[in-house]
C-alpha cells in the first residue's frame, strides 16, 4: 500500500483528494496546510509520495521540495498545481520534484500518477516537457561563464521529450521510435535527473562563493 501525504492550504480540496486516495486503497498518512507543517510531518511520517500544492503559505512548495531534497529523503514529490505557474513548476522540478499534474486532472490520472511516482517514475505533462525543453535550451544558449558544466540533452532525449510535449503517451513514443516502454521512461527520467543534479551543483557552488565572500 502506497503511503501518501497531501499538502494544500484549501481544506475542501485537501479532504477531497485525501478521500479519493483512501477510497482507491492508498494510505494517507498525513495532511498539511502550509510549508512548515509539510516539512515537519514528512520528517515524522516518511510518506512515499508527497502530493504538493505549490501555492501554500510560506515556505512555498518549491522551498519545501528543495528542503526535502537537501535532507536526502526517499519521499517522492508530485506537484499538483491549479494555476499552472510555469516558472514555479519548473523550479519545483529542478529542486527535485518527480512530476507535475494540473489539479483538474481526472481521479484516474491522479491515481496513476501517484502510483507511477511511487514506483520511481517521472510524471510529465506535455506542458512540463515544454518547460524542461525550454530550460535546456536556455542553458545551452547561456554564456559558458554563467552556466559552467550545464547539462545537455542527447539527440534521443530531445526527440523523446519533444514527443512528450506533443502529447504522445510513452507507449506511442515507444511505437514511433521503435524503443521499449522502459527505455522511453528512462530517457524522460534522465532529462529530469540531469537538470536536478545541475541545480544541486549550482546551489553548492553558490554556497561556496557566498562562504568565500563572507
Amino acid at each position, binding site marked *: 500500500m502506497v503511503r501518501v501525504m497531501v499538502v494544500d492550504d*484549501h481544506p475542501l480540496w485537501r479532504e*477531497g483528494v485525501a478521500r479519493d486516495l483512501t477510497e482507491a486503497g492508498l494510505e494517507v498518512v498525513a495532511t498539511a496546510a502550509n510549508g512548515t507543517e509539510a516539512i515537519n510531518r514528512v520528517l515524522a511520517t516518511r510518506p512515499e509520495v508527497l502530493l504538493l500544492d505549490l501555492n501554500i503559505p510560506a515556505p512555498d512548495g518549491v522551498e519545501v521540495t528543495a528542503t526535502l531534497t537537501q535532507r536526502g529523503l526517499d519521499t517522492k514529490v508530485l506537484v499538483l498545481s491549479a494555476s499552472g505557474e*510555469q516558472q514555479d513548476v*519548473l523550479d519545483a522540478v529542478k529542486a527535485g520534484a518527480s512530476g507535475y499534474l494540473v489539479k*483538474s486532472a481526472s481521479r484516474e490520472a491522479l491515481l496513476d500518477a501517484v502510483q507511477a511516482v511511487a514506483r520511481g517514475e517521472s510524471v510529465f505533462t506535455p506542458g512540463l516537457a*515544454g518547460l524542461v525543453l525550454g530550460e535546456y535550451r536556455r542553458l545551452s544558449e547561456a554564456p559558458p561563464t554563467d552556466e559552467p558544466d550545464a547539462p545537455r540533452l542527447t539527440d534521443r532525449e530531445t526527440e523523446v521529450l519533444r514527443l512528450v*510535449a506533443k*502529447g504522445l503517451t510513452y507507449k506511442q513514443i515507444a511505437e514511433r521510435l521503435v524503443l521499449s516502454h522502459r527505455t522511453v521512461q528512462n530517457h524522460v527520467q534522465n532529462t529530469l535527473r540531469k537538470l536536478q543534479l545541475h541545480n544541486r551543483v549550482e546551489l553548492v557552488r553558490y554556497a561556496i562563493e557566498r562562504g568565500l565572500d563572507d
Partner: protein
Amino acid sequence: MDRATRAAQQVDDQFYRVLTVLRAVTLVYAVGINAARWRDFEHPGAAWVLIGVMVVWSGVVTWLYEPRHRATWVFIVDMAITLALLRSTEYTHTDEMLAAHTFTLTTYWVTTVVLCWAVRWGVTGGLLATAIVQSVDVTMRPSVNSSTVGNIFLMVLAAMLVGYCAHALRVAAVRRVEAERLAATAAERERLARAVHDGVLQVLALVQRRGAEIGGDAAELGRLAGEQELALRSLIQSRARGEVALDGELTDLGQALDQLAGPKVSVATPSRPLMLPSDVAGEIVDAVRACLSNSIIHGGVDTSAWILLETGDGRLVVSVRDDGPGIPPGRLEQAESEGRLGVATSIKGRLRDLGGTAELIDTAGQGCEWELCVPLEQMPPVPQKR
C-alpha cells in the same frame, strides 16, 4: 500629461535650472571683463548700453525658460538677441582688438543659448546652435587663429555632451516611470492571481472532478466548470508572467499561444517569454488556429490537440499535433493540383509570408502533425526578464 512625459519634463527643468546658474555666472564674468577694459573700446558708451541689455535680457529669458512659458519661439528669440549682442562686438571693439582675438562683448555668455538648444533639440540642436554662433563670431574677425579654433572645439564638445546627456536622461526617466508602473501592476496582479487561485480555481477544479464522477447533469456542470477553470488559469498564468512589453509593438508568442488552451487543447511553452513583433505573433497564432480547425474538420469535435513552442538555432518552431485520423501522404498535393485551396494551403501561405515553412509531418498513424518554422534573424532581441 501622463507620468512619463512629466518625468521627461522634470529632467528638462533641471537642465534649464543649471543653465540659469551658468547664464548668471557667465554674465558676471562678461560684466567683469568688460568693466576692466572699457577704456579700450572704440565706443565705450554703446558698450555699456549693450552690457545693460545683456543683463536685462538675462533676467527676462530666465523667466521665459520657466516651464509654463518655455516654447520654441523663446529659444529662437534668445538666439537672435544673443547673436545681435555678439555681433555688436564689431561696433564696440577697435579693429586691433578684433584682430588680436580679444574677448567678444558677450564672452562666454553666448554658450548658454547654445546649451539651451542642445537640451531642447539634442546633439543636432546643439551643433546647429554652435555653427550659428561661431559663424557670427568668426566672420567679424580678420583672420582665424588657434584660440578661435579652440573655442569652436570646446563649444562643439559641450553642445554634444549636454545634448546627449539630456536625451539619455529623458529616456532613462521615461523608462523608470514605465518600470515603476509595471512593477506596481505586476504586484497587484499577483495579489489578484493569488486570491483567485485560492478560491475560485480550486472550487472549479473540484466541481469538474466531482461532476465527472457523479455523471449525468452533474457531468455537464463539471465540464463547464472545467472550461472556465482553464480559461481563468491561462489568464492568471499570463498575468503572473507579467508580460507587458515595454515596447507596445511586441507580443509574447508563448502567452499568445497559451490563450488557445482548452479542454481538448494542451499548450507547452518555455518559461522564458519569446517577444515578437505583434503582427508576426498574430500571424503565427492564426496559423496555429487554422491547424486546430483543420483537426476538428478531419477528426471531429472530440479530437485532442497539443501545441508545442520551441526556439533555438535561430528559429522558432511551433508543432501542432492532433490524435485524429491524420492526412494520408500526397493528399494535400492532390487537393492543390485539383485547384482546391483548403486550410492547409492557407497555413502554408501564412508561414511563407513570414519567411518560414509549414510542413506536415509523417506520424505513422499517430494523428496529424504540423511543424511551423519561422527564422528569428529579423526579430528584435529577446528582453531578459529573469
